[in-house]
C-alpha cells in the first residue's frame, strides 16, 4: 500500500524540505505550501491586496523555488522563499501600477522611503541590489531590537502602520515618528558610506 505521505511529511524540518527539492520530490512543493503557504500569502497580500494575484504569486514562487533548488542550498529556507515571494509580488505590483494605481501598503510604504535611494541606483541590477542589501543589513544590526522590528515590519513585510502600532501597543503617530527617525538615520548612514545620494 502507498504510504501516507501527508502524515510522513508533517514534521519535516526546513532541512528535510530542502532535501526533498534536491531529490526532485514533488512532495516538496506540497510540504512548502503546507508550512509556508499562509506566510507567503500574507507577504503577497500586503503588497498586492488581491487574492487572485496572491495565489498566482504563490504558484510562481513554488516554481521558482523548484527551479532554484538544486543547485542552491539555502541556509535559511524561510528567508529564501520570502525573498522570492517579495520579488515576484513586487514585480507583479509594478506590472499592475504601470496600468493603474492599485491600493497597496507598498504604495504608501514606497512614498515614505522614496528619497532614500537616488536615480543612479538601479534596483534591477541584482548585484547592486545585493550590495545595497548588505549595507542596509549592517545598518539594521546597529539598531535596537524594537527599532529593527518596526523597520522590518514596515519595509520588509510591508505591514500597515495601524497593525504595527497595535502589535506594539503604541499610537500610529508614534510609529510614524519612529519611521521618520529611522529613515533619517538610514539616509545619513548611506550618505556617510558615500554610495548613494
Amino acid at each position, binding site marked *: 500500500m502507498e504510504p501516507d505521505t501527508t502524515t*510522513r*511529511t*508533517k*514534521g*519535516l*524540518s526546513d532541512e*528535510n524540505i530542502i532535501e526533498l527539492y534536491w531529490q526532485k520530490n514533488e512532495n516538496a512543493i506540497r510540504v512548502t505550501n*503546507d*508550512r509556508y*503557504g*499562509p*506566510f507567503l*500569502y*500574507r507577504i503577497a*497580500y500586503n503588497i498586492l491586496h488581491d*487574492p487572485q494575484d496572491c495565489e498566482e504569486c504563490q504558484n510562481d514562487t513554488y516554481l521558482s523555488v523548484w527551479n532554484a533548488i538544486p543547485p542552491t542550498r*539555502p*541556509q*535559511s529556507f*524561510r*528567508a*529564501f522563499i*520570502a*525573498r522570492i515571494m*517579495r*520579488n515576484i509580488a*513586487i514585480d507583479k505590483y*509594478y506590472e499592475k501600477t504601470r496600468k493603474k494605481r492599485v491600493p497597496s501598503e*507598498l504604495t504608501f*510604504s*514606497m*512614498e515614505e*522611503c*522614496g*528619497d*532614500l*535611494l*537616488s536615480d543612479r*541606483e*538601479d*534596483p*534591477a541590477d541584482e548585484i547592486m*541590489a*545585493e550590495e*545595497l*542589501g*548588505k549595507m*542596509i*543589513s549592517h545598518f*539594521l544590526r546597529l539598531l535596537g*531590537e524594537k527599532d*529593527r*522590528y518596526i523597520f*522590518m*515590519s514596515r*519595509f*520588509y513585510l510591508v505591514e500597515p502602520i495601524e497593525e504595527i502600532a*497595535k*502589535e506594539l*501597543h503604541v499610537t500610529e503617530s508614534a510609529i510614524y515618528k519612529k519611521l521618520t527617525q529611522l529613515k533619517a538615520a538610514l539616509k545619513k548612514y548611506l550618505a556617510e558610506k558615500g554610495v548613494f545620494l
Partner: protein
Amino acid sequence: MKQNAFHRVMSYIDNDIVDAFLDIKSKKERKISSQRKTHSFLKWGSMAAVFCLVLATSLVLIFTHLGQNADPALTLPAGVDPAVTLPMGADPAFSLPTDADQILWYEKSNVLCDEDASMVTWRGIQVSEALYEALCRAENDRYLAVIVRYRTDERLNQYVFDGKSYLERERELDALRSLTNRYEMLQKEGEQLKFKERLYTEGLADGTKWTKDFYEERIAFYGESLLSEFIESGVFLAEKLENSLSQTRQQIREEEQKISDSIQSYDESVAPALVRAFEAYAVTAKNGTVYLFITPSALASLAVENKADYAMYLASRAGYEGHLSDAASPDIQDTVSGFACDKIVFDSLDTENLRPSNDEAVLRLLNETVEKWQYTCDCVEFTFYYRGVLTEEMFQEMRYAGIVQTDSPARMIVQVKYADINTEALKELSQMAEITSIHIAASTGSLPQPNAAEDPSSP
C-alpha cells in the same frame, strides 16, 4: 528618484536578520492569543459548573422548541449538542450533516482552535492558517467548525473590567515584568554597583573593572531611583531587594489572573452580538466562544455586514465538546541545585532576555516557560554554545526529541518535549567547562518526525 528601488533592495537583507525578525514577529502575534488560551484553560473548571447549569436549562427550552418546530432539513450532527446550537438557520437550503464526524474540525485536541497561527485574508475575511488550508482543500459542501471573533483587538484593549481597561492591565503587567527583570539582574550586579564610579575608575579589589560605557549602560538600565532604593551609603540591601522581588512576582500573578478574568468577561460580553451577526447561519456560543458551522461555499458568499471585522479560526472538536486534553504533563524536578546560573539565559518574547540569578530562578523560569507555551509550542529548545567538540551523545540525558545542527559550529539546539525535561541533566551540562552559555526558549518550530530523529536511547 526611484521610489521602488528601496523595496527591491529590502529583499536582499541578510537571512539571519530576516529569520530573527520573523521569529519575533510570530512570537509577538502569539502573545495575546496564547494568553487568551492559557487563561481560558485556567477558567475552564469553574466555567464548567456554570455551563452545566445553562445547558440543563437550555435543553428544556430547546427540546420544547424542537418539538414545536420540527424540520427534518435542519438536522444536527450527532455530537453537536442541540441545546447550544442556535438558531439553526433561516435559510431553508441550510442543513447540517447528521454526523459530527463529517464536520471538519481542527485536529488538535488540546486547544480550542489554531488561534496562535498567523492570519490571512480569504474572500475578504480574516482566517487562520488552518482554516485557510481547510477552505482550500475541503469539498464545497463540507461543514467546517469555525470560531468567530472580532478581528481587531481594539475592542478588547478598551474593554474595562474591574475599573481598568485591558490595555492598561497589559501595560501594567509589562511594567511589572520589566521591573522583575531589573530586580533579578540587580541581585547579580548589586554587590558591584554599590561601588559606583569606582567600578570603572580604579576597579575593585577582586580585579573587576568595567568600562565607563558599560557602567553607564547598566545605570541607565536600572535607573537612578531604583538603584538608590537598594543601594544606600555604599551598602547593597540584598534582603530588601529579595522582598521586593517576591512582592512583584505576587503582583504579576494577581495581574495575570485579572487579565484572565478580563478576557473571559469580554468574550462573554461580545458573544451575543457575534451570534446575532451570524444568525442566518448555524451559530452558537459556549463559554463566550462563538462557533459557526458553515461550508466553504457559504463562507465564500458570507452575507453579514462588515465581514472584514471578523476573524475566524478552525475549531477543535475537543474544545467544542468541552474535554480539552492536557498538552503535556510537565514534571520538572524542582529540587535540583547547582546550576551554573551565569551561563543560563531564558530568551524572552519581550525585549529583554531573563538571566536567572540562582537555582530557584532557573526552575521557576523553566516552569513558567512550560506553563506559558505548552499549548502553543511543541517543546523547549535548549541552545548550547560551546568551545570544544560536543557530540549528540552528550545530550542523551536530556531525553531530547530532536537535535538541530546549526550553521555555526559553535552552536547546537536540543529540542526536548515538556514531559521529558530533565533538570538534573541540564544542571550537569551547565557545569561543563566547554559550554559557555545555554539559551532556553519555547520552540515555535515543529519537532522532527519520529522516524527521522535518532532514537536517543539507542547507542
